């Protein structure tokens, strides 16, 4: 590091960094975005592998492949790897890559901290994987059998791997909070002159709301798991009724984080959709202002309805009624978003490239997941569905289309921009159809299983559930292995392909399409002028 610069020299006209230093010491939003996305892809495969083991075990009743402890450990790991390891980093990767390009900023506002936010993730991933493997070593204690929700008293009885998991959550929290601070500051302080908040592309708006949610709820989870740590090792009794505490307190702390987390996963993908659908319908987004209002409403109401995950714990009637009504109210702004998307497509000149296929699938399937969510929000009905496979089907219908397909749509939409090459459209469409078929085959039968009474998170099941589980497991294998095709498409596109123009899609609007594909190492060193038609 040299500090020989004279006053006011422009610092980034040094030669661009190369080799390992470029990636490890990076202060470049594009490189850090790439790192986030690659990390997310690696974790997607690890989380996917654990899911496929779970489904292989559930292929038929009885205990074949796994023992119950390992099964529980895999259930825990699958959730944590997917949520914290894959979806959140992938969304952060899109934010890093696209937000500075979209708002005409030279980089994220705090580039060194940006790199710290990313590099904490591999550390957290290491702790997460340690929490999974430590029990297999002598003296490593029992496996984590709590699921990702870590409810005490069970989580207080688990061996040392729980401590690795708690620290992994601390690290993930630090990473998320730092990344969110960076995104908020970038969006509020780095927009090109003339880009007012209400001209900001919707993807930026979704990330602004998401970042606020993260800053407000992640520290609460950190506090909750800290109390867990103290209960485990230092004799406190926050979650021990004998000392006047309450295990239910942890559930409140967890879900105060956990429910807004659902919107943290969802909103960036809604942002991607708000770009993909206008592009391929060749019409501007319908109802920009109502979109912004809807996502702020979702974020705000989403923060005060957490206890609908805990209807069966014995809350007072007043409390459950409040949480039920609040939860159902959320379907209004979410419905508004869906109707805006449909209105955007109405009479558009539509074409169905891979990102648009995913977008349409999201509208159909996310709505489906949302509707089963309204069923679950109703207290007396939920008393029946609670902790059944119906819940598993519901949240996979929300999170796979709502979060992951949105990220896939974003990756296909912007991959030509990032790499400078068009992806193979034919393979992209094949991937879409295999993926969506596999997904529905996996999770649709689980609705019936849940309604018929099959509980979730249990290694064995009654023989009456066999048929649907067989279908679900076959679907899961198709679904899981289809991601190898995604990997192949991505590698193929990085290595070569038809050169992409700077405006990759003819209908695309926005500043990111005015830089070359791939963009130069530094973009928008002088802020671009903002014209009316550029706003998304």
């Amino acid at each position, binding site marked *: 590091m040299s500090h020989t610069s004279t006053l006011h020299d422009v610092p980034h006209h040094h030669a661009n960094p190369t080799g390992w230093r470029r990636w490890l010491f990076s202060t470049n939003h594009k490189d850090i975005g790439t790192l986030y996305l690659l990390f997310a892809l690696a974790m997607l495969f690890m989380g996917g592998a654990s899911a496929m083991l779970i489904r292989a075990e559930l292929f038929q009743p009885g205990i074949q492949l796994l023992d119950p402890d390992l099964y529980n450990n895999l259930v825990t790991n699958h959730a944590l790897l997917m949520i914290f390891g894959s979806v959140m980093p992938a969304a952060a990767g899109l934010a890093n890559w696209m937000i500075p390009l979209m708002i005409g900023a030279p980089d994220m506002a705090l580039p060194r901290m940006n790199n710290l936010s990313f590099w904490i993730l591999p550390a957290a991933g290491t702790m997460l994987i340690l929490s999974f493997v430590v029990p297999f070593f002598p003296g490593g204690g029992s496996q984590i059998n709590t699921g990702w929700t870590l409810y005490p008293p069970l989580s207080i009885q688990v061996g040392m791997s729980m401590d690795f998991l708690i620290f992994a959550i601390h690290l993930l929290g630090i990473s998320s909070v730092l990344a969110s601070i960076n995104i908020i500051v970038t969006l509020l302080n780095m927009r090109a002159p003339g880009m007012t908040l209400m001209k900001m592309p919707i993807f930026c708006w979704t990330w602004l709301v998401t970042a606020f949610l993260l800053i407000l709820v992640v520290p609460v989870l950190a*506090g909750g798991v800290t109390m867990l740590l103290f209960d485990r090792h230092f004799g406190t009794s926050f979650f021990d009724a004998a000392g006047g505490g309450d295990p239910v307190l942890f559930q409140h702390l967890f879900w105060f984080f956990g429910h807004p987390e659902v919107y943290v996963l969802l909103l960036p993908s809604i942002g991607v959709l708000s770009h993909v659908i206008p592009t391929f319908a060749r019409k501007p987004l319908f109802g920009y202002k109502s979109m912004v209002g809807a996502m702020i409403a979702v974020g705000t109401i989403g923060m005060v309805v957490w206890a609908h995950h805990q209807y069966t714990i014995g809350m007072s009637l007043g409390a459950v009624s409040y949480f039920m009504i609040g939860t159902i109210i959320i379907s209004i702004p979410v419905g508004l978003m869906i109707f805006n998307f449909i209105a955007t497509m109405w009479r558009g000149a539509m074409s169905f490239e891979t990102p648009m296929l995913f977008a349409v699938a999201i509208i159909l399937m996310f709505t489906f997941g949302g509707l089963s969510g309204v069923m679950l929000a109703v207290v007396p009905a939920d008393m029946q569905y609670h902790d059944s496979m119906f819940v598993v089907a519901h949240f996979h219908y929300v999170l796979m289309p709502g979060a992951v397909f949105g990220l896939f749509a974003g990756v296909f939409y912007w991959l030509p921009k990032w790499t400078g090459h068009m992806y193979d459209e034919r393979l992209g469409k094949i991937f879409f159809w295999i993926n969506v078929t596999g997904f529905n085959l996996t999770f649709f039968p689980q609705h019936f299983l849940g309604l018929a009474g099959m509980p979730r998170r249990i290694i064995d099941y009654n023989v009456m559930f066999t048929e649907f589980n067989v279908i679900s497991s076959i679907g899961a294998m198709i679904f899981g292995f289809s991601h190898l095709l995604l990997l192949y498409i991505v590698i193929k596109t990085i290595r070569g392909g038809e050169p992409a123009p700077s405006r990759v899609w003819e209908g695309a609007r926005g500043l990111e399409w005015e830089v070359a594909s791939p963009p130069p190492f530094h973009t928008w060193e002088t802020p671009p002028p903002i014209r009316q038609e550029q706003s998304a």
Partner: protein
Amino acid sequence: MSSTEQQTAYFIPEPSPWPIVGMVSLLTTLIGAALTMNGVAVGRYIVIGGLLLFAYLLFGWFRDVIAENLADRYNRQVDRSFRMGMFWFIASEVFFFLAFFGALFYIRNVALPWLGGDGYLGATREILYSQFNPAWPSHGPGALGGTFTPMGAWGIPALNTLLLLSSGATITWAHWGLKQDDQKTLVRGLMATIALGLLFVVFQAYEYFHAYGALNLTLESGVYGSTFYMLTGFHGFHVTMGAIMLMAILGRSLKGHFSAHNHFAFEAVAWYWHFVDVVWLGLFIFVYWF
């Protein structure tokens, strides 16, 4: 030192090794902590190594930032980024404390009435622990940690409130001096703030000593002990951090790093200090007083 140039390019730092150092130090510290808590003796050395590396990271990273600032490479927009960053960092800290305050309110207003037979759990109470009185302060039906005396509000805690509120005034005095380019007032104000802050920590340590010895109020004293030590402990930790930050700022003031128009670091620490102050008021009211 004036950064009046609005239109200079936004400052993008060169590639920096510090984030990687940060990652390694955090990972080392936490792996060591997990091992130590589970009785692996070598863990504590790993923790110490990790913390030393973390201290090195802080020195190195801030040395770079200070050097860049002194070389006048930050324009007003960068300054605004720093301010917003610090603001939202403090916001996240507020919500960290909210988790513990939330736990306290929940225990007192929901969990204890439940244990006392509120709602449909009355039968449980009658059968299992009918003599339990669910009044605050409580160490639960199991009477964990044995009989204890709760901490009163009007001894050391009231004095500590006075100390922290005064320190809020002295740091404002220092800031006022800085804005007049009056180095002497700046240094005096900072020294007074640090002295008050350290005195607070000393009193707090004495209070803990007294609680453990004379009052039999320990971390194991049921949920009262848990919430008491967790809230005051995390606050005390933040006061200590704030005092260390103030000392760093004092050192920089003595070197003449700050001017009336360029002193973000001072203001960031001052905000942090006021935040710690406000949290204390919450503690005084809800942990000690009511």
